[in-house]
Structures are given as C-alpha cells and as structure tokens.
C-alpha cells in the first residue's frame, strides 16, 4: 500500500512548531493526572540576551539552551478518509494520507540536573522528618 505525504503549506511556509525537551519525566500530582489539559507545566525564562533558558517546574529549576536541530523534523498527521465517500474513487485504496502540518527546526533542551528551589528553612523542616 502507498501512503502519500501531502503538504498544504506551500513552499517554505510550513508553520514552525517548537520542542521543549528535558531529561526525565514531569508528573502531575495524582489529583490532576486525569485532567492535564490546561495545567501549567512550568515557567520558561530567558534571563539574558544569550540563548540560555531556565525552566521552572514545581520547585525545580532546569538550565538549558536553544539548539538548532541538525536535520529538521516534520510534524506529520495521519488522516484516514472515511469509507463513507466511496463514490470518490480517486482516493487510494488504503484511504490513508499523511499531511505535513508543521516543521521543527529548534528545540530548547534542558540536559542538566535540576537545581532545587528550596529555602534552607524548608530544608531543615524536611530533614527533621
């Protein structure tokens, strides 16, 4: 079977997507695990004019930088044509197409260990447990 890759963006006009990448996983507290939508993950800051960034997740701060990808990543979306419109015989048999909906050229990569944003007072509280 053949799955065609379509692109409706026109030459060089693919909308650019972004990647924020970090080591490890971000977990929501159990109360929120089933409804992540709209939940804030963290705060992305650019403290200076350099391409350095911090990402604050809960009480952890990550330091990273914006890096161009060696090769671009295309964002493909699989589109399944419903068999309902069978009269249009031009659609290929598999009825599946891939559409390019975006391109990614940069990611903001956090590859360092996090710094804990914890006051020494709290640390004492913690340690006393």
């Amino acid at each position: 079977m053949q799955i065609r890759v379509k692109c409706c963006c026109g030459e060089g006009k693919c909308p650019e997507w972004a990647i924020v990448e970090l080591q490890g996983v971000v977990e929501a507290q159990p109360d929120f695990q089933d409804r992540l939508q709209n939940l804030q993950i963290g705060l992305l800051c650019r403290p200076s004019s350099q391409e350095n960034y911090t990402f604050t997740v809960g009480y952890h701060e990550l330091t990273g930088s914006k890096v161009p990808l060696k090769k671009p990543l295309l964002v493909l979306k699989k589109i399944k044509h419903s068999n309902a419109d069978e009269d249009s015989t031009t659609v290929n048999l598999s009825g599946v197409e891939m559409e390019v909906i975006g391109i990614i050229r940069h990611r903001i990569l956090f590859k360092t260990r996090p710094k804990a944003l914890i006051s020494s007072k709290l640390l004492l509280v913690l340690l006393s447990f």
Partner: protein
Amino acid sequence: MDKEWMHHSRHSEAYLNGVDISNMVYRLQVQGHNGKMQMPPPRSSLNDTNERRKAEMTTCHLQKLKNLKMEQSRPDCCGGAAAVLNLQPNSSISVAYHPLFGPHDDLILLELDEKLLPDVLHHRVSFRGQPDEDAVLCTRSKTYAVKFVGTSNSVFLIPPSDPSGLHENEQDGDKVKRDNKAASSVIKVAPGSMELVEVAPRLDKLKMLLSENPYKFDEVFEMDELNEMVDCNMSLYRWDDLIDKVQASDDELRAALKSLSAVEIDGYWRLVDEDYMDGLLKMLLHNSVLNEWSLDALHEDEVVGVLQSDGFPCKIASHCLQVYGSEAEGSLGGRVWRLDERRVCIHFARGILQGGKMKMESFMGEWARKAPEGMQVNFDMLEGEVLTEKLGIQTWVYSFSVSSLPSSPAERFSLLFQERPKWEWKDLQPYIRDLRVPGLTSDGLLLKYTRRTQPTLDADPVFSAR
C-alpha cells in the same frame, strides 16, 4: 505537607487557569542518584531506573501508526510555538498542557534531510509497503528505510497558536484568576521520531510477482483469456499495483522493469515467456534474411509489420527490438534499431545451456553455429552468465546467471559461496558489480561479506565466505 511545600517554593504564587503550579513534580531520571538531591518525598511510583537518553531503534510498521482523531486544534492559550522560539531576553512564558493535550498517536515526527524538503513540499514522497513489511519512504528516485528512534527524554511538542483562537477563552467561565503572561501549550509528549536511512530498493519481490504469470504464446490466440485472468484474480499487475506491492521509488521501479525486460501489455506489466521470446527472435532473424534487412538498421515499422503478419502482436514485436537492440541514431522517418551482438549471442548461449552443462569445445561449436550470420560469438560475452569447471582435463561450461540471483548482498554472497567456496576476483566481479548498497563502496561490500586471502604477493587474491 504538600501545602507547606507549595508555600515555600518560589513560584507558588503563579497560577494558570486556577491551577497551582506546585501540582507539577519534576523527576529527573539519573542513575545512581540515591536520593541525595532535594527531591520531594515519594508520592507515586517513581521511575528512576533510567538510562540517559538511550535511543532504541525499533522497526516501524505502517500498520502500527494508529489513527486517532484530533479535531483541528484551536488553542485558547495565546503564544504557541512562536512565543517559545522568539522569547525575548529578560522575559518568561508559561508552558502548559494544551486544552487538547493527549497521546495523539496520529501525530508523527519525521526527521529528514534538508535536501529532501522540496520533495515533500511538492508532494513527491510516499510511504510504501505492505502491512507485514517494514515501511519505506520513497522520493521520486530513492528509497529510505523508516526507523523509529525512541527517547526517554520528555519531548514537549508545542504547535503554533491559531491566531483566530487568541483571546477566545474569556467566555470559558473560568472565573479564577488567569495568568496574564503569554502561555504556550504542549499538545503531546513525543515518544521519539522517525529517521530515514537510504536503502537499496527491495526489487526481488518485483521479479517474483512478474514471474508468476509470464506472457505466453497461447495468450495471443485466446483473446478472452486476459479478461478471464482478470476475473480469476490471476497475477496481473498494473503500475499502481506494483507501486502498492514493491518497495521502490518510481525511478527505481521503472529501471528494474527495464532490466527485467518487462513490457506493459493492455495496462499490465508482464514478463514475456522465454520460449516465446526465443521464437520471436528467431522469426525476426529469419525475416531479416528473407527480406535482406541489415541487422544494424532494422526499421521498426517494417519489422513489426512483418512480425505481425506472422502472428505476433505489435506490442510484443517492438518489445523484441527493445530487448535485443538499441535505437540507432540519425534515422529519418520512423525508428531504426540495431541488434546488439552481445545480447543476441547471450540469448543463444542460454538456450544451448538450458539442457545442462557441456564440454567447452562442443558448447563453443554449437554456439557459433546457432548465432546469426554476421555475429561473432566470444566467450567473454558470457561474464556473469556462465561458469566453468575443470573435471580431469576437460573444461565444462554451465549456466549461472547473475540475473537469477537475489539482489540483497547478504543473500547474494551466501548463494555465491554455496555455488563455489572460493572465488577469484575475475570470476566474482561480474556477479557482484550490480550490487548497490547506499553508503557502502564495493570494497566495503567485499570487506563485509568475504574473506580475502592472497597466498603470495603476486598471486591473485581469493575470496571465501566470512
């Protein structure tokens, strides 16, 4: 306990859509960490047994690309990818889960070379393969294997914001204090991406498909047979069927059809049965003697006309000229062909050796007799077609055609060493020169699949199996 944590974290005052950020827990997956870093008390199942960004290559099957419906995204958070990528110095942006955040298995990341981008933008690429085959991506001229490369990092995918979706969520009724900072939304956490590796087209299947049902002599007279075959679902393949079934780019498929001497008859790509082809060529040569045609200048219209009156279909007759000849240049009015001495002679040599191996002298004698007048047979023509072996003082010739061998290097070498444990370079070369492996030179191929021995410095190297 949680409350306390919240109040002491520096950003606990930040809210988005009424959700306190300290509901997020970040877990760094580092080996041998041993709990010395200030991590929150264990809450849920920690997955700390991690290796750093270990990418695992798994093969990706087309059928595995599940299809989940995703409504056209209308993020009601402003910002989007551009806000992240163009974040100004001394500013910050909130990164949140998109209102439509989910697994979105229908969204796939494909890494590809910058030079392939124009092909994609002009709709010249497609994935090809049967559900049980490893998918390949084909451009017009090349074939790429598709590999899924997983990552254990969290890769947050942020789509561009839909401008029309800006400031739309006022009526959402969230009376809770909203963050007035710009926000970017994560639609999906990508488990990895697809990577492309250029590969040789997988053409052995083409040969197999076309060999199922070659065009035969009796088909000519039974006009209804084609319809019958179509009705009976016999193996007949149109170009589109081949594209569906064979993992090769259009150009590669076209070249392969040509090298197999396939011909398109009534819309179906066929191989012509060897005996039929033999009869046709003999008839052509016979006619050229009768009509005093020069084998160096055969006028297509004339030749095809005569062959048609002998009962051969027009299409097959001109196919014969293409298989055994090359178009002569500078011809006025109609196409003119010159028969290729080598191809015609090889044809007769094959016919002679069909019955099994022969003594060299008797083979050469018979070959010279059978070749058309004006053509000189020469044993060198049979490179890659026959092998010789010495039994006592006699040299024997037998048929061993490179065209009957598989095109994947591993299988090819395995068969070659099955045939003969040791090969001299001059014998081996004709059987491997057509192998093309992207990124591997022919020396690289030899290094990978053979062991080279050279008894003395001036002796010819000998190749054996690894």
